């Protein structure tokens, strides 16, 4: 059979799916724990670093700083004046999270203690945090650059073709500014390196999560001052790359340097917070574009001004920008293109290489404007794109010499697959949920000639005397399926069973030269080199077989692991011994493949044929936009791709669907949000990437094609799929709403703000009649006038959380597992004791606490708190009952079940307790993620939400000094059920509190020291109907806003008993008693309810500048709840 083209399983599927495949952190053996000390400042001079105390601490084997590297050591990356990044800060830190020092210790606790013992004196300085600030007069220059503009690392000012001819021919033009967010790869395996220094030989072995071992060896060797070959990378599984692992970041060199200093193996594994907050995300692009077209809809000219946020160091920014702008001249055929692009230094984490590499960012602008042109001319968006197709086998404006191009077939596939014409022309309706259809096209190369030797790939094949075959290549398969397709190719070329082929990748000693998996080069480059090696080895095997079988080599056929000729056959393994060049029962063959006809971009050359082939795609998105809440749901998605011929269709579809899903994340939720340069959403909890229930079924469609330039007809696919989703979704949303959003991600705040503008709605919630708010308003007004700066710069120094960070970390707590309530309460009454429910909130928050409790009293085995039963018409819920148990109980009211099932994940609900949910700390991302805020650090500290990003998590009603809200959904629903909480204290003290009175502030309760929520009592009222609705950024998110509505109606349908509670809108769950009273005795329509809720919101609202939209969302949620009753 032919393996190429078949849907074979990944060759290591059994081990990988069972968890037997070892990733770096899974490797056995003794090693030290490496940890990195990072800058807390966006920009500061490093006055002094004192590591004396840390070095003397127990278990600490090494502490390294910049002094442990050669003076002036820099990552090479692009080389020359572009090389700007030291392995550890040498004199200046330029972003929050920059590596300052690193330690190796025997345990994680010792390493953490050593980090705290390092004394660094910083002199913080103001520095620009956005491209706008960086280019404003007087901004601090982060580096000495070669351009004549401040903080511009590279500027491109380029004209392709004849834009003037385009201007003359055009009859329509659209202009606008678009922005594509900085998003994290969020690889599931955090970047990790295990380094083992061999002092005797002066070399280091690395097991590291990488897509490109050669580049790791290059950077680590020059930073350590050793030869390239003395950095030996060993094969180990890598858990997702997407570009993140395609160049050296920091963990590799730091692990190696720590191992050298410690004289022992060291493992450096980034935490999730480091991964999101300090590693190298996608570059944010701000693209101002003008697109012109003629009366037929043919694009004639594009003119762009692009600012690329470089972050604090170049890393790969220069090439990301170059590839990004190529979007303008690579797919359509305007007369001319002009662009000015600037790579702008900001004191934020440096951008890195990310799947798509600048293309999704520029594509968003171009594909949005193609739709705007289509709308202006009254031409269907797919038709218009079909009119703009570039010819096959032709050169583009940017210098690409495109071979096959089936973009037209892709567009037709979207039109047919989404029933585009009929669906779009059907009546749209005027309900609250509007549907829209959008399309976007894209293209991407198959491996760019971006470095010296990037047009070359070497590969080796081994034929063993037992008939097995081994492929050896120097790349690394981080999940793309590269190893599997290479095995398929080798099996075909040598006529062996796929099961008899193994693959050795990565190992820099045992594999030949290959630059690795980046720029979508895996399939083309290693597919070609392994194919070539296979054909050459097969030729040798045929010679051997010919001799053995007494035939002519040309007649020998390799099939089924045997060589056949003249009606006779021989096993391939038996031929190995016949080859004079075979060694130890292995016949090896190595080859070198070179691409013909590609060119490098050079500083003096702005057009080049970078890739041997070019892939194309068109994606179609169908979205439902809820005008009540601003929520966008993708309900259908079709991704049609020209990949040439797929070598493994299942793997290709996997790349298409996975890339589209990742692009949908950036389109609808993902965005690294920063405050003063620090990422505020550096956890999965706060980083809104799509979960399973957030995505539609993405339909992959591969159009027929065969690319002669590619191996076995194949082109690339891995990056192509992430290019169109941004434009497709933006176009679909515009189609649904008649409003164009130009900034991704399209989150509910942007939708509702745009809708309010579209409808000319403005809320009237002036506070002039509310003297109680004047003081708050005055303080908020003072924040930007210097108050924030004073509190942040000076006030925070006085707080307990800040002081705690200079002390050794708290010891792990003792855990007392109580079995009786009185035992638990007695234990809790002792100083330093705190209650432990499921631990799902307390454990992750503990490292942030200034004084974490030394003793935890576990309630999970307290008999009285585990009861869940109905007595006398009251559902009695013990505080230690889990959320899952409560949701499964037959008597639990539906409204509460709905809320419970919206909380976090099933795993959390299986552990988290009802009491724990009620008393969990606030979810403000400043409070949670390392800010010394007012609530964390005391009265002299600022609330970072006042000036920071408060769109989602903060109060729009009644906010005081802390703008956070109470996060508990259970806490929002219980007041709507007239629930009562039984609070238990020591010495048998019990008191009952109405659920509506339980909270005193954001996530703060009336619980006294030593008290527990022992039980929740919910009166069961058969006639009560209820609904709970919630708006979050992903399935399982905490509420951005929520509504709980319960109603008892009489036989005429009149509402005689109403409860309405809004969650996450005010500091505590907010019962709208005035609305309840007005509704009582009526049979309201949804419009009646909305009107009353709006009026009540306007009476109480005091939103922050960017969260007024939550008032609209809350009112919309009430409408949804009404409909769900």
């Amino acid at each position: 059979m032919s393996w190429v083209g078949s849907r074979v399983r990944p060759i290591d599927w059994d081990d990988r799916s069972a968890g037997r495949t070892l990733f770096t952190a899974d490797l056995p053996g003794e090693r030290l724990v490496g940890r990195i000390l990072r800058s807390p400042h966006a920009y500061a001079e490093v006055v002094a670093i004192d590591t004396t105390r840390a070095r003397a601490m127990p278990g600490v084997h090494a502490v390294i700083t910049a002094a442990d590297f050669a003076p002036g050591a820099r990552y090479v990356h692009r080389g020359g004046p572009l090389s700007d990044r030291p392995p550890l800060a040498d004199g200046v830190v330029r972003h929050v999270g920059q590596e300052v020092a690193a330690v190796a210790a025997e345990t994680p606790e010792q390493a953490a203690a050593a980090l705290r013992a390092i004394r660094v004196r910083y002199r913080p300085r103001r520095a620009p945090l956005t491209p706008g600030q960086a280019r404003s007069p007087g901004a601090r220059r982060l580096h000495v650059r070669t351009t004549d503009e401040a903080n511009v690392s590279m500027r491109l000012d380029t004209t392709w073709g004849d834009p003037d001819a385009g201007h003359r021919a055009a009859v329509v033009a659209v202009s606008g500014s678009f922005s594509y967010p900085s998003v994290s790869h969020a690889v599931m395996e955090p970047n990790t390196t295990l380094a083992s220094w061999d002092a005797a030989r002066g070399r280091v072995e690395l097991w590291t999560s990488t897509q490109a071992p050669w580049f790791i060896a290059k950077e680590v060797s020059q930073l350590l001052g050793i030869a390239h070959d003395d950095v030996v990378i060993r094969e180990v599984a890598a858990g997702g790359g997407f570009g993140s692992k395609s160049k050296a970041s920091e963990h590799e060199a730091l692990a190696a340097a720590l191992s050298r200093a410690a004289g022992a193996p060291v493992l450096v594994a980034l935490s999730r917070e480091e991964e999101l907050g300090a590693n190298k995300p996608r570059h944010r692009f701000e693209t101002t574009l003008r697109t012109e077209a003629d009366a037929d809809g043919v694009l004639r000219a594009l003119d762009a001004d692009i600012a690329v946020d470089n972050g604090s160091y170049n890393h790969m920014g220069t090439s990301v920008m170059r590839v990004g702008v190529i979007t303008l001249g690579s797919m359509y055929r305007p007369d001319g293109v002009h662009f000015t692009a600037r790579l702008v230094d900001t004191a934020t984490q440096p951008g890195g290489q990310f799947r798509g590499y600048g293309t999704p960012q520029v594509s968003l602008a171009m594909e949005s404007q193609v739709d705007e042109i289509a709308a202006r001319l009254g031409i269907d968006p797919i038709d218009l794109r079909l009119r703009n197709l570039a010819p096959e086998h032709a050169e583009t404006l940017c210098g690409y010499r495109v071979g096959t191009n089936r973009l037209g077939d892709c567009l037709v596939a979207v039109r047919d697959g989404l029933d585009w014409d009929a669906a779009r022309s059907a009546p749209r309706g005027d309900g609250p949920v509007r549907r829209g259809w959008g399309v976007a096209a894209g293209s991407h190369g198959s491996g760019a000639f971006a470095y010296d030797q990037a047009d070359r790939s070497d590969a080796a094949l081994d034929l063993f005397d037992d008939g097995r075959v081994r492929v050896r290549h120097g790349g690394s398969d981080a999940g793309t399926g590269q190893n599997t397709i290479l095995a398929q190719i080798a099996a075909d070329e040598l006529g062996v069973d796929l099961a008899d082929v193994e693959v050795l990748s990565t190992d820099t000693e045992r594999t030949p030269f290959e630059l690795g998996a980046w720029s979508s080069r895996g399939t083309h480059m290693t597919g070609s080199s392994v194919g070539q090696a296979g054909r050459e080895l097969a030729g040798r095997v045929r010679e051997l077989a010919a001799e053995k079988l007494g035939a002519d080599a040309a007649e020998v056929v390799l099939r089924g692991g045997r060589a056949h000729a003249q009606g006779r056959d021989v096993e391939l393994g038996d031929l190995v011994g016949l080859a004079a060049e075979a060694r130890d029962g292995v016949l090896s063959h190595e080859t070198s493949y070179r691409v013909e006809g590609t060119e490098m971009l050079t500083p003096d050359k702005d057009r080049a044929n970078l890739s041997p082939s070019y892939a194309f795609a068109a994606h179609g998105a169908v979205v439902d936009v809820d005008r009540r809440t601003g929520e966008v749901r993708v309900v259908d998605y079709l991704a049609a791709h020209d990949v040439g011929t797929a070598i493994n269709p299942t793997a290709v579809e996997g790349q298409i669907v996975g890339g589209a899903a990742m692009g949908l994340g950036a389109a609808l939720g993902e965005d690294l949000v920063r405050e003063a340069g620090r990422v505020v959403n550096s956890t999965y909890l706060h980083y809104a990437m799509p979960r399973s229930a957030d995505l539609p079924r993405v339909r992959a469609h591969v159009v027929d094609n065969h690319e002669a330039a590619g191996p076995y007809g194949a082109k690339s696919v891995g990056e192509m799929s992430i290019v169109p989703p941004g434009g497709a979704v933006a176009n679909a949303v515009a189609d649904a709403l008649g409003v164009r959003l130009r900034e991704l991600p399209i989150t509910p705040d942007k939708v509702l703000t745009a809708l309010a503008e579209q409808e000319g709605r403005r809320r009237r919630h002036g506070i002039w009649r509310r003297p109680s708010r004047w003081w708050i308003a005055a303080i908020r007004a003072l924040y930007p006038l210097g108050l924030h700066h004073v509190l942040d710069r000076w006030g925070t120094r006085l707080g307990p959380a800040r002081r705690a960070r200079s002390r050794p970390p708290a010891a792990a707590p003792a855990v007392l597992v109580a079995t009786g309530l009185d035992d638990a309460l007695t234990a809790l009454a002792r100083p330093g004791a705190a209650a432990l429910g499921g631990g799902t909130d307390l454990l992750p928050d503990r490292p942030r606490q200034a004084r974490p409790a030394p003793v935890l009293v576990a309630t999970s085995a307290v008999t009285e708190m585990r009861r869940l039963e109905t007595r006398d018409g009251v559902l009695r819920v013990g505080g230690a009952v889990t959320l899952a148990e409560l949701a499964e109980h037959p008597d639990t009211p539906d409204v509460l079940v709905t809320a419970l099932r919206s909380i976090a994940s099933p795993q959390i609900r299986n552990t988290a307790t009802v009491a724990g949910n009620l008393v969990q700390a606030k979810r403000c991302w400043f409070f949670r993620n390392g800010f010394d805020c007012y609530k964390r650090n005391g009265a002299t500290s600022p609330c970072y939400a006042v000036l920071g990003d408060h769109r989602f998590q903060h109060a729009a009603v009644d906010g005081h000094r802390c703008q956070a809200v109470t996060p508990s959904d259970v806490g929002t629903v219980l007041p709507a059920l007239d629930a009562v909480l039984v609070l238990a204290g020591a010495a048998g003290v019990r008191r009952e509190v109405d659920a509506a009175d339980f909270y005193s502030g954001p996530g703060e309760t009336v619980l006294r020291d030593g008290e527990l929520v022992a039980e929740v009592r919910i009166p069961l009222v058969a006639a009560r109907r209820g609904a709970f609705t919630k708006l979050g950024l992903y399935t399982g998110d905490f509420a951005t806003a929520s509504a709980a509505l319960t109603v008892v109606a009489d036989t005429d349908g009149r509402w005689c008993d109403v409860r309405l509670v809004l969650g996450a809108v005010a500091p505590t769950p907010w019962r709208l008693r005035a609305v309840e009273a007005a509704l009582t005795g009526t049979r309201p329509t949804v419009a009646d309810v909305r009107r009353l809720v709006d009026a009540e919101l306007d009476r109480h609202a005091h939103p922050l500048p960017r969260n007024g939209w939550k008032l609209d969302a809350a009112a919309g949620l009430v409408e949804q709840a009404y409909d769900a009753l």
Partner: protein
Amino acid sequence: MAPQHPLVVNGETVEVDVTGMPSLATVLRDRLGLTAAKVACGRGECGACTVLVGGRPVMGCITPAVLVREPVETSEGLAAESADLRACFADTGAFQCGFCTPGQVVHATALLRAGLPPGSEERQEHVRHAMSGNICRCTGYQAIVASVCTVADARETEQAS
């Protein structure tokens, strides 16, 4: 003497040292050498560390081992039970890098034991929601969801015949 705590892991009883309140994932990975459960966030937010405790999926990374009183099952222990599911994963592209996969497989095993609701659409919806605590960055989820449903169908057909 360091506090010891009995755990039943994949059917075997072991005494583990719970000094310092280690998480269940730490105990499994560092002390018992069971590394299928991955620590990708350490905060109970991604599901890569999912194991079964008393048959229910939990986040191993934030479950204090000292609180675990019911039997623990890990991906290693469920390899045979999940063989058909894993084969389906492999056939449909339900994993790429495989880092989240043991957690996905463990969670799906629990779902399959509990049984899925009837009806193809309902099934998909049920699995999509139930698995939303298991983040995958590679696949876009749909092959995972489809695999779980396919295996549920196949097992039901097999039981019926």
